[in-house]
Each structure stands twice: as structure tokens, then as C-alpha cells.
């Protein structure tokens, strides 16, 4: 039985839960370059989807815990909505990676030019980089809290945000460049493959966008 004083504190800190959840985003993101390599080598990528499903279910457990903390405990300096929105945005990253793998299993692109393959792989690496930075940002949030919002730590958080924004902008530029390259192939490639490849690029760009949403939200709440 919990005693009087114990009930004052949460069982686990919300920022720790956000960080644990972000770890699953990171693990999913880490698979992106590997998935793209396997796909363009003609291997089956369905096994990755199963792995991501596992991460998704573990991440859901954390989300429920966070929701419970904010339901039971009344006072906090992070607004309940902000914390839940951050975790929701993190969740959409895992969902988007899962969607990306599932879409890849639907079609096999034949005779794709090497230049496009390389660029898509680069895009995959950039997206993974954004997620990695997002994880860093969530971890830095713990330090911001520990330091009672010290200007030094807030500056570090700001710098990570700038890096993610830069990454996201690079992803967009590369995505557009790949899109142009893909549609230049309209006379050589199957139209279905063209649209398929373009969808893959858009999905990857969206993942990076979601990572940016998370860090932007974090930046807003520490201000």
C-alpha cells in the first residue's frame, strides 16, 4: 500500500517516459537505411515491419503510462496537452516508418536508375539523422528539467532544434530533387513505379517532418 508521502510523487517522471518512447522511435528510424538497402537488393522487407510492430506496441504501453500520470496527478509544469502532443508526434514517427515498410512490400520497382537509388538511400540516411537528433532533443529535455531550465541547457536544446530544422530542410531539398529525377524517367519507367517511388520519397519526407514537429514542440514548452 502506498503511503501518504509517496502518493505526492509520480511513479516515473514524464520526461523519462518521453525519452523511453523516443528510444523506440530511434530504433525504428535506425532501420530505415537497412530497409532501403534490402529493398533495392531485392530482399524481403516484411520482417522489418514485424520488428517495428513490436516497437509500436511497447511504445503504446509507455503512452498509456504517461496518460495515467497526468490523469492521477494534478499539478505539473508541463501542460498535460503538451506532453501528450509530444508523445503523439513521436508515435506518428513509428507509425510512418511502419507505413513506409508496408508500402515497400507492395511493389517491386524494376530497372530503377542507380542515381535515384543512391539519392533515395541518402534521403533515408538524412531521415534517420533527424530521428537521431529528435531523440537527443528529448534526452536534453531531461537535462533542461534537471538543471531547472538553466540558460546553458536551453541553449543546447535550441542548437539541437536548429540542427533538426536544417536536416528537415535538407530532406525537403533532396526529396524535391529526387522527385524531379523520378519524373524525368517518365518515358523510361513504368508509370506505376514512378508514382510508387515518388510515394516512398514523400513518406520519408513526412517522417523527417514529424521529427521536426517533436523538437519544435519541446522548444516551445521550455520557453
Amino acid at each position, binding site marked *: *500500500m*502506498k*503511503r*501518504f*508521502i*509517496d*502518493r*505526492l*510523487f*509520480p*511513479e*516515473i*517522471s*514524464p*520526461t*523519462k517516459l518521453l525519452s523511453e518512447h523516443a528510444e523506440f522511435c530511434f530504433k525504428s528510424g535506425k532501420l530505415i537505411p537497412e530497409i532501403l538497402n534490402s529493398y533495392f537488393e531485392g530482399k524481403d522487407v516484411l520482417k522489418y515491419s514485424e520488428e517495428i510492430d513490436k516497437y509500436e506496441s511497447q511504445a503504446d504501453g509507455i503512452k498509456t503510462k504517461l496518460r495515467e*500520470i*497526468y490523469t*492521477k*496527478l*494534478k*499539478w*505539473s*509544469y*508541463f501542460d498535460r496537452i503538451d506532453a501528450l502532443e509530444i508523445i503523439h508526434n513521436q508515435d506518428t514517427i513509428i507509425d510512418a516508418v511502419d507505413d513506409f515498410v508496408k508500402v515497400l512490400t507492395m511493389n517491386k520497382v524494376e530497372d530503377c536508375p542507380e542515381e535515384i537509388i543512391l539519392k533515395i538511400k541518402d534521403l533515408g540516411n538524412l531521415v534517420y539523422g533527424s530521428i537521431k537528433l529528435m531523440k537527443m532533443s528529448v534526452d536534453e529535455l531531461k*537535462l533542461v*528539467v*534537471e*538543471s*531547472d*531550465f*538553466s*540558460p*546553458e541547457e536551453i541553449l543546447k536544446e535550441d542548437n539541437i532544434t536548429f540542427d533538426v530544422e536544417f536536416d528537415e530542410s535538407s530532406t525537403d531539398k533532396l526529396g524535391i530533387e529526387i522527385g524531379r529525377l523520378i519524373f524525368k524517367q517518365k518515358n523510361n519507367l513504368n508509370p506505376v513505379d514512378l508514382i510508387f517511388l515518388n510515394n516512398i520519397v514523400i513518406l520519408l519526407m513526412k517522417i523527417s517532418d514529424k521529427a521536426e514537429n517533436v523538437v519544435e514542440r519541446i522548444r516551445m514548452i521550455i520557453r
Partner: protein
Amino acid sequence: MILIILAFIVGFGMAFSIGANDVANSMSTAVGAKAITPKQAVLIASILEFSGAVLFGTHVTKTIAKGIVNLELINNSNYILIGAFSALIASIIWVLLATYWGMPVSTTHSIVGGMVGFGLAAGGFNVINWIVLLKIVLTWVISPLIGGALAFVIFKFISWSILHRKHPAKAAKLVAPILLGLTFYIIGTLFVIKTLKENMGLGNLIGIITAFIVFVLSFIFLHKMSSDKNEYSIVEKVFKNAQIVTSCYVSFSHGANDVANAVGPLALIYIILTTQNFSSEITIPTYILALGGLGISLGVATLGHKVMKTVGEDITELNNSRGFSIDFAAATTVLLASTFGMPISTTHTVVGAVSGVGFARGIEVVNVGILKNIIISWFVTVPFAAIVSAILFLILT
């Protein structure tokens, strides 16, 4: 003679129950923040509760024994004897029932309620010293607020002077000794002024000397700590060491205030039986305070470990800089109340201090809903103990 033996047994039992149950609440933040292990908490509490009771326990004991009920107006030593005994028994009944029901109650509120009940039954409204009672009730409201405000200020000071510095670890090694020096300044000064009844000048001099010695020793000790880790980890490590001292401070203050809950009525019974005089200024014999202190220490040593372990395992999200602020604020508030003879609840003061650090953005989430339990405790405990005490008094007379 039978009554005095019975009173000693009951008083000792009450002290034992305070030690077994209540001490864990006051040490919870130090155990929860992993500054000390439950075993170390038991050892610290066993020694410091006793010291606090013996060195500072007399002030609150006097208030419980003679401050709430105007004994001169009852003017019947038998009534007073039975009344003091009824108050003690009523208080124990309520604490046992509340523990059984899992309600967070304060032994302080129980014993005050018990004394009020006996007073009303023995002599009606006129017998109660309403001014003193009002002061006590006011301190029940004010103590969590003061604890909260003090914790807020201390944490903000730590934040400004350490956490927001360019090199927090270096700053912690200087600021923590200052705060520890301040702790000993408060204890030293209050001891000289309030317990030894010496003048303020001497009190301040002794306080400053003690504070300086503690500052130098802790500065040397903390300076030896390695600085190769993450800055904030070093800050927490510094406060982990400092919190060992504040956990002693909390235990000492708790002993100083709560011993009266067990030995207040007992002291009254003893004084009447040995001197037959209750009208003049009473002096609490040191060995009665020692008996109470021993009861608390024995309670902690035998049953306290299990409770402390439970508390320590349940509080996982508290680090040492926050724990230090809570302990310092709670202990200072309780010790100050003790020197003014005000019986307050250490647990409620700790709750106030936790909320204070929470409002200073030191703790991510605080369940302030728990504060309603404090109010329930006031409105349920005092009337219940008073009614039971009055009924017991009427039955026994």
C-alpha cells in the same frame, strides 16, 4: 502508583508507534532520493530522534501538558490525572484505527484533540485555553505553508547559485557547505537561546562558530570529490552527501516535536503524582523526555525498517538537490515550531515542502490532490480524539 506505571506503559507505547510509523514519513524523501538506505535511515533516526527529544522536546511537551487545558480551573488533581490518561488512550485508539483504515493521521492532532476533549468534559468551555488552541490550530495551517515557502526559496537559491551557473559542479561544492553551515547555525543558535535559555548574543556567537566549523569541514570533504562526470551528476552527488546531514536534521526536529505527543500527558500525570502541584510553572524531567525518545528510537529500530523500505521503493522520481530543499525546509519549520512550543505535524510540513519545490519547478509532477487529506486530518482527527477522550473521562470519573 498503578496509574503512573500504566501511564508510562501507554506513553512508551505511543512513542513506540510514532517511531514505527511516523518517522518513516519524515525520512521518506532522504530514503526516496537514495541519499541514505533504509538501514542507515533507521540508524540515523534511532540516534537523532532521541537527541531531538531530549534536547528540544521540553517546549512542546509543556504546551501539551499544561498549555491547552487551564488546569487551575479544574482544580482537582484526580480529574487531571484521569483526564491526561483519557487523552493519551483516546489518541492511541484513533491512531490505531486510522492506521487500520489506512488513513494518514497525525499523532499531534490526536493528542491535541484528546486534551481538548478531556478539558471540555472536566470543566466545560471555560477550561480550554482558547488562545493557545487557536495558536496551535494556526500553526497547523501555517506550518505546511512555511515549509512550502522555505522549500521554494531554498530550491530557487540552489537553482540560481548552482544549476544556472556555467560550472554547476564547482558551484555546488561551495554552496552546499554554506547551506550545511546555515543548518548548524539554526540548530546551534536555537539550542542556546531556547533550551539553555541564554541570551541572543551568545546564541548567535555559538551558532556562527558551529556554522563556520561545519562549512570548513564540509567544504574540504566535498572538494575532494571527483569532477570527471556530467556536471549535474556531480551536483546531485554533492547533495546526496549533504542530504545525509539534512536527513539527520529532519529526524532531530521530528524527535523534538513529536516526543510531546507521547510524553505530554505522561509528564502531567507524573508531575501531579510526585509534586501534587499543577498551578505553578512545570518543569519536564529530562528522563521523561528520554523515555519518549527511547520509545521512538526503539519503534524505529524494530519496526521502522520495513516501512522505510516501502517508502524508499515507492518514491523513485526525486533527486538529491530537491530532496535537500524539502528536508531543509521541513526540518527548519518543525524545529522552529518546537522551540515556540507549537505541536505540528512533520508529515504535513513535508507535504508542504514537496509542494513548494514542485511550485518552484523542481519536481515535474506533484499530486497536490493529497493536500485535501491534510484538511480531512484536521477535521476528523481532532473531533474524534476529543469525543473519545471526553467519553473515557466521563466513564473513569
